[in-house]
């Protein structure tokens, strides 16, 4: 039988050997050493919050991706691919690649030229303090919540795989993050994110390789999924391995979504909002040393992002095909987290969707490799959390503290505030970790947050960059209306579940589908309100919009570089590969 899974019903999946512990301890020592080493390089605000704006395209690009590749991302999307099938890959392809290329080639010049410290900082320059205040407060709120989600994901790994006490794992990991970010600022966070990027791949790549060998390749995997889901009487079992062909009708796929929700809700709103205006990721690109590096960084990130489904989506699909109960030999069916975590679920030894990655890890990885896999998940947790904490620190210090509380703060005072804020952000986010247990799966909860704050923000930022008639009152009112309407729609469906037929256009819409449509509507509301209010109010004179709006910002021409160093060339290459992937998995 499957020895590693023989312990499924016991309290832990595996026990670490001494070599696993050495690998984990070595990782913790290394990240702290990096923080200590870089402490002396974070003395000014520019150093602490922007890493001195001297990162190369590769470092900024890998950090850009790694800040997004938290354990939340790894476990949450593996869980979602188990739940929704290959449809989850949309969040890596159409839900990321076009937006990353758009950021690189269209938006980056504006961010770079105006030398802003943050996205709310851009809103202040473009619209004034009203829009900045809404954006910075909602962003600060979102980042600590996201940080809590990462902690929860981490705690799940430790509980499932090792049986470690949740409080212990949260405390040790979060204090480590607080230490290295407080010591070295963004530079330390970025250095560790690059390190974590390689560790994540080193620890996670074996699962799809060995999984595909066991399943008999992609065609064998498809056949096993079809057979298993048919055995379990799951509707539309064939749809779990098709990306687009089942999106004609809401009822033809496990997510209850159609192509409109994916293309417009995800591709045009959620994804554009996240990758171009979420300061967590944009901050990494702002640290690039020049405009060409700043444009190349998201393209490098996009190239690697396209490959992430290998280590995230594929393990979820392999879970459907290969996981069986070691005692009965029956198919193992994972359940929503709230069911798995209930007393009854625990008594039955049930596992949640988000546990599929640790389960696959335990299936293939013996001593040594297991330590590396666990380290990869810890690294994912830390990169996700450090990303949130460093972005929170910057927005709090520049856009709340230095703008609303102490307008005359010196550079030293900002750095001091940044260090304290790092610790405070970690403490607050610990408190949010337990909130996420109420969501069916982690990513549903995350996407709900994005639809509240990121989707309307995208409408405000893009109008600000491309339409000079947008006024401060219009920007403020649009952002507020978009955010409130999104929260309102969410509450409406919670109070009256039948309202989903209006919000998501179908009663079959699952959480993710609802998030996509809610994002689409609230972004449209934001844009409409911004346009209407702008036409009713006085616009800013052109002189105040210099370097901020298309047509009034002199975009520097690319230096004369060879084709292979040109951001546009690599952008086209990434776009072509993206299209090919859609066709292959159609």
């Amino acid at each position, binding site marked *: 039988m499957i*020895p590693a899974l023989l312990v499924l019903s016991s309290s832990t999946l595996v026990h670490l050997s001494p*070599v696993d512990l050495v690998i984990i301890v070595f990782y913790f020592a290394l990240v702290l050493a990096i923080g200590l080493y870089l402490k002396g390089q974070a003395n000014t605000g520019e150093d602490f919050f922007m890493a001195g704006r*001297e990162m190369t395209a590769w470092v900024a690009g890998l950090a850009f991706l790694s800040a997004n590749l938290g354990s939340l991302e790894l476990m949450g999307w593996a869980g979602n691919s188990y739940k929704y099938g290959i449809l989850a890959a949309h969040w890596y392809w159409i839900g990321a690649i076009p937006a990353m290329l758009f950021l690189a080639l269209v938006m980056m010049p504006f961010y770079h030229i105006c030398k802003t410290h943050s996205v709310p900082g851009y809103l202040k320059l473009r619209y004034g303090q009203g829009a900045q205040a809404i954006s910075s407060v909602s962003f600060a709120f979102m980042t600590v919540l996201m940080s809590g989600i990462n902690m929860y994901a981490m705690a799940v790994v430790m509980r499932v795989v090792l049986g470690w006490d949740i409080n212990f794992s949260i405390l040790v990991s979060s204090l480590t993050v607080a230490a290295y970010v407080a010591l070295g600022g963004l530079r330390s966070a970025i250095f560790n994110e690059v390190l974590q990027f390689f*560790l994540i791949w080193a620890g996670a790549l074996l699962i799809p390789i*060995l999984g595909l060998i066991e399943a008999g390749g992609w065609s064998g995997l498809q056949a096993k999924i079809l057979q298993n889901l048919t055995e379990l009487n799951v509707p539309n079992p064939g749809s779990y391995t098709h990306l687009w062909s089942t999106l004609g009708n809401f009822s033809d796929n496990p997510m209850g979504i159609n192509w409109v929700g994916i293309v417009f809700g995800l591709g045009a709103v959620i994804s554009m909002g996240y990758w171009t205006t979420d300061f967590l990721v944009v901050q990494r690109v702002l640290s690039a040393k020049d405009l060409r590096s700043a444009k190349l960084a998201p393209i490098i990130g996009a190239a690697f992002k396209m490959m992430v489904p290998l280590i995230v989506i594929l393990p979820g699909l392999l879970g459907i095909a290969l996981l069986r109960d070691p005692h009965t030999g029956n198919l193992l069916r994972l359940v929503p987290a709230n069911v798995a975590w209930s007393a009854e679920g625990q008594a039955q030894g049930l596992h949640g969707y988000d546990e599929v990655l640790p389960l696959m890890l335990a299936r293939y990885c013996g*001593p040594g490799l297991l330590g590396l896999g666990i380290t990869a998940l810890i690294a994912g947790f830390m990169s996700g959390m450090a990303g949130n904490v460093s972005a929170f620190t910057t927005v709090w210090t520049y856009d709340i503290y230095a703008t609303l509380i102490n307008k005359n703060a010196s550079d030293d005072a900002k750095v001091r505030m940044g260090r304290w804020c790092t610790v405070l952000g970690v403490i607050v986010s610990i408190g949010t970790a337990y909130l996420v247990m109420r969501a069916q799966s982690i990513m549903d909860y995350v996407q709900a947050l994005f639809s509240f704050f990121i989707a309307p923000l995208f409408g405000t930022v893009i109008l600000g960059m491309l339409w000079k008639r947008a006024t401060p009152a219009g920007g403020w009112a649009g952002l507020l209306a978009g955010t409130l309407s999104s929260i309102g729609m969410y509450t409406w469906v919670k109070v009256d579940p039948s309202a989903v037929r209006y919000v998501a256009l179908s009663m079959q819409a699952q959480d993710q589908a609802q998030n996509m449509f809610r994002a689409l509507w609230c972004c449209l509301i934001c844009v409409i309100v911004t346009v209407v209010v702008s036409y009713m109010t006085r616009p800013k004179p052109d002189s105040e919009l210099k370097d901020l709006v298309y047509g009034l910002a002199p975009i520097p021409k690319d230096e004369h570089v060879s084709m292979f160093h040109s951001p546009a060339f690599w952008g086209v290459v990434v776009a072509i590969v993206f299209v090919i992937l859609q066709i292959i998995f159609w």
Partner: protein
Amino acid sequence: MKSGGSLSIWFFTGLCLGVNGALIFARGIYEAIYPPAEKVVLYDLHANIWWGAVLLVLGTIYALRFSPARERARNAGKS
């Protein structure tokens, strides 16, 4: 990239991959000689040996290519 001194991020990356690779490779050799009672799925492929070797080689290349001595020499050449 100015990395704050003579240590590059790529050196840290190489160090991390190299050390982990060495540990995993060594454990794989040990397991090949003394097979464990409870085996993981596809144990016969000895993933820890070849995966550990891959990480060890990659890590060593990076650590040597971006070693502090080479970085110092490179920085001295630029100034």
